[in-house]
């Protein structure tokens, strides 16, 4: 059994009691013996890894305060989320309205043009 095989078996099995063949190898191979020691330590560190943080008395209250459910919260949330979209829409509509609305000058010109045509069409000379 070579070093790679021994290390793979040690890591896969995760057993504290390696087989005879592995034990013999570990007795003769300082590298693998050190690897086995590291593996054991790693398992121990992972096993004991615990923050130990406990919730304080106000935790549940803070969670409830963070819920986006009450109507006031929803309105606030909607306002915050929709405000940029509303402003953008208002801007687009304003630009569109300005572009689509004829200027006073063009209205006067159009009115004069209409009058001129009606005058030509209504004039006695036009009928003859």
């Amino acid at each position, binding site marked *: 059994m070579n070093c790679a095989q021994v290390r793979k078996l040690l890591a896969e099995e995760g057993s504290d009691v390696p087989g005879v063949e592995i034990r013999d190898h570990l007795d003769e191979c300082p590298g693998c013996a050190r*690897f086995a020691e*590291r593996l054991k330590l790693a398992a121990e560190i*992972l096993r004991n890894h615990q923050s130990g943080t*406990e*919730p304080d008395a106000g*935790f549940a*209250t803070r969670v409830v305060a963070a819920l986006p459910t009450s109507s006031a919260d929803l309105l606030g949330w909607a306002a915050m989320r929709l405000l940029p979209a509303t402003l953008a829409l208002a801007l687009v509509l304003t630009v569109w309205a300005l572009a689509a609305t004829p200027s006073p000058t063009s209205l006067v010109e159009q009115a004069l043009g209409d009058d001129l045509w009606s005058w030509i069409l209504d004039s006695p000379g036009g009928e003859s």
Partner: protein
Amino acid sequence: MELALSITMGLESGTEPAREEAALVAACRRGDEDAFARLVRRHEKRVFRLAGRFFRQPEEVEEVAQQTFLTIWQKLDTYRAKAPFEHWLTRVCLNCCYERLRKQKVRSEPLDEDYAAASSEPTARLEVERLLEVLPATDRFILLLLHGEEWSVAEIAERLGWSRANVKVRAHRARKKLRQLLAEEL
């Protein structure tokens, strides 16, 4: 192990606490925030202990716990009461932890908080702690479940709602990376 046991043991259906919990969940579904506060108080220790398995800083543990309960509140409609509420809570909490770890990618703090202060001490333990820090967070997540909670691949799959094949592949990859790391400089 104590944590693992406390997580797996759900309330027996039909018992008074189980009925009480079912009533709380039903009230929460109707938008009753007081009922939700009671539900949080009932389970907060369990969630903190589970999140504390993956995060050391108290602020991080609280943030993940809060995220867990907010997710519970928002997705309460999807909870089918076939399995105990605790199982669903565990699943949501684990997935919140996993998502947070996945986003972190590289660990910013040592596994052992005393490590930084004592890092000049060239002991084998510190050496291993340094090596574990290099592990990708998602690999550490699986290893913490395997070694910390002492859950099997099947148990991890069931509690996370992942397929066994997925967990098996991830566990194999995590163990392989750990093996490669621990074999460094030997």
